[in-house]
């Protein structure tokens, strides 16, 4: 069984009808999670536009730490693949990047392309526990924390702070590198430090080449950012309550909206694994899940896992781009036939995009609460 209402297994068509009814009656719906393939995220933005919902990806907080810095001062970034091919110096900031496996890969290789080709690669760490199995040079973190250290490093690199200092050697190594890369996790260091880090990188580009490498979240946040940009021209946290996409990272934070009672219905989209927030128990919620148990929300509908059940466009962390991922199983023709929601084969799950399109079609049949609004979409 792949659909549930109040924890009771039901036919998928019944669950989709209940989901449509739940969303149709809502005054302030939110579509959250968005941890899914690009087609499903696109369908979520289309549905939100049609029903006046707001959107917030599961990746929201960390994503906005980086987007805020980008919007304020710009960024000079590179990808993991380019860092592996070109960097002769990699600085790993904080603890989170060590969990990604990237430092280990960088440590055993050396640059093969560009101006640093043939040089050895130095792997440096600041403010993180490092990894005993990976050869690197660790610099001590100050008591004031990583954001303060990033500022200090920027002052040293620019020569505004002089004299002997524990980080002075790190600053001179950054200035002396041919192709430096600074690896960080925006959710670990926060928005202010991310902006400072991008400032450091820009300062270094006065004398050499250096790039920031923000590690992506595991919840498709960077793919959502791109879908939101091409769908609305704005960042992911937009609301269509007034018919047009309004970008407001504070107002459309789904957790904040749930806390303040501003939303009366939600659709949680996670065809890939994402932690289910506690508010989905309080707010009447429809959950489209790749791995459902049935009791996660008022209405739960199982959907195919992208990149396993069917081929899909997903975030590729190493290429830092949306890329096509083939289905894991070789059942492509049968899968194609079953894409439509409520398809007769109960053993094959439909895609989340198909369910969302079905919901949008059903919702179009409900009476429009504010007819004037539709003209401005």
């Amino acid at each position: 069984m792949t659909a549930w209402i109040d924890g009771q297994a039901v036919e998928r068509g019944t669950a989709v009808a209940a989901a449509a009814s739940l969303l149709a009656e809502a005054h302030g719906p939110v579509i959250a999670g968005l941890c899914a393939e690009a087609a499903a995220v696109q369908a979520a933005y289309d549905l939100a536009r049609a029903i006046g919902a707001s959107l917030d990806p599961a990746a929201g907080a960390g994503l906005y730490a980086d987007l805020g810095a980008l919007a304020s001062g710009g960024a000079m970034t590179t990808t993991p693949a380019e860092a592996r091919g070109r960097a002769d110096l990699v600085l790993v900031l904080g603890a989170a990047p060590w969990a990604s496996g990237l430092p280990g890969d960088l440590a055993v290789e050396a640059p093969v392309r560009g101006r640093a080709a043939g040089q050895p690669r130095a792997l440096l760490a600041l403010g993180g526990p490092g990894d005993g199995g990976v050869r690197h040079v660790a610099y001590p973190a100050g008591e004031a924390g990583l954001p303060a250290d990033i500022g200090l490093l920027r002052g040293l690199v620019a020569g505004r702070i002089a004299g002997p200092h524990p980080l002075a050697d790190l600053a001179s190594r950054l200035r002396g590198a041919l192709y430096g890369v600074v690896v960080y996790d925006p959710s670990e260091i926060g928005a202010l430090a991310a902006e400072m880090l991008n400032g450091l990188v820009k300062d270094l580009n006065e004398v050499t080449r250096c790039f920031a490498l923000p590690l992506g979240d595991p919840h498709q946040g960077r793919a959502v950012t791109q879908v939101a940009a091409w769908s609305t021209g704005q960042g992911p946290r937009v609301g269509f309550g007034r018919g047009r996409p309004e970008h407001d990272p504070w107002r459309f934070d789904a957790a904040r909206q749930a806390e303040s009672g501003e939303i009366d219905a939600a659709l949680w989209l996670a065809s890939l694994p994402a932690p289910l927030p506690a508010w989905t128990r309080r707010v009447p919620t429809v959950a489209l899940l790749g791995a459902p148990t049935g009791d996660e929300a008022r209405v739960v509908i199982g959907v195919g896992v992208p990149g396993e059940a069917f081929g899909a466009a997903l975030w590729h962390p190493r290429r830092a781009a949306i890329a096509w991922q083939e289905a894991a199983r070789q059942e492509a023709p049968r899968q194609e036939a079953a894409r439509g929601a409520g398809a007769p084969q109960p053993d094959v799950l439909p895609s989340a995009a198909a369910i969302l399109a079905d919901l949008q079609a059903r919702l179009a049949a409900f009476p429009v609460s504010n007819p004037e609004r539709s003209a401005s979409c």
Partner: protein
Amino acid sequence: MSTLTLREAPERLDLAGLTPAALAGLSEAEAARLVVGTGRRGLTLGDCFALRLDGSDEVRIVGATDRLDRVGAGLSAGRIVVEGDVGQRLGAGMTGGTVTVSGSAGPFAGTAARGGTIRIAGDAGESAGGALHGAAAGLDGATLVIDGTAGDRLGDRMRAGLIVATAAGAHAGSRMIAGTIVADAIGDHPGYGMRRGTLVAARHGALLPTFVETGRQDLVVLKLLAKSLDALAPEAASLLRAPMRRYGGDLATLGKGELFTPAG
């Protein structure tokens, strides 16, 4: 005095542009049709408020809650008096006039306000006088007085003007471009990334390693600032008359900002 009495706010309401001047040209029936809702219902002013308009240059908002966003946004003259709390972006982009709030304000109070005075009797949320996502500047010439406690990032990326608060959270004056912040107490790491501008605080949390002490200073400009604050905020004025120790920063960036704190 015109009065808007809140009956209910079933969703966040956007009161931008509801200035005395804008309301003066409208009958009560016309004003009641102005859309203030932010959801798909298209709620109007009349749906949510009881209106009494007399065309004067003062508008009183009674029974206000933290769901009222952008109260006083775009104000250029006159007076808006709020009885209760307000939501985000109080007085955003205002160029003149006065906004007073008897309760507390949400985040981004006074963002991009170029002139006029905002006074909040209670507390203010994060980034009071601070910049919105991607915006060029926070407070930009207006005066913002917070009688209670401000959240983190007070005056974030402010470009001009004056903020007076009793207390503020961490990162007061972060990314400041210019302007002045005076507070009795501020939290850790004030002035993170500040380029220019002046912070004055009787007490402060941990300082960044990129701020350096530049000695005890007796500056005429602080006395002049004290004089200008006598009427607006007497406690802040007396703080400015104390002998001051000066720290310069943030040396991570331009480093032309300063933090004054009483010496000894």
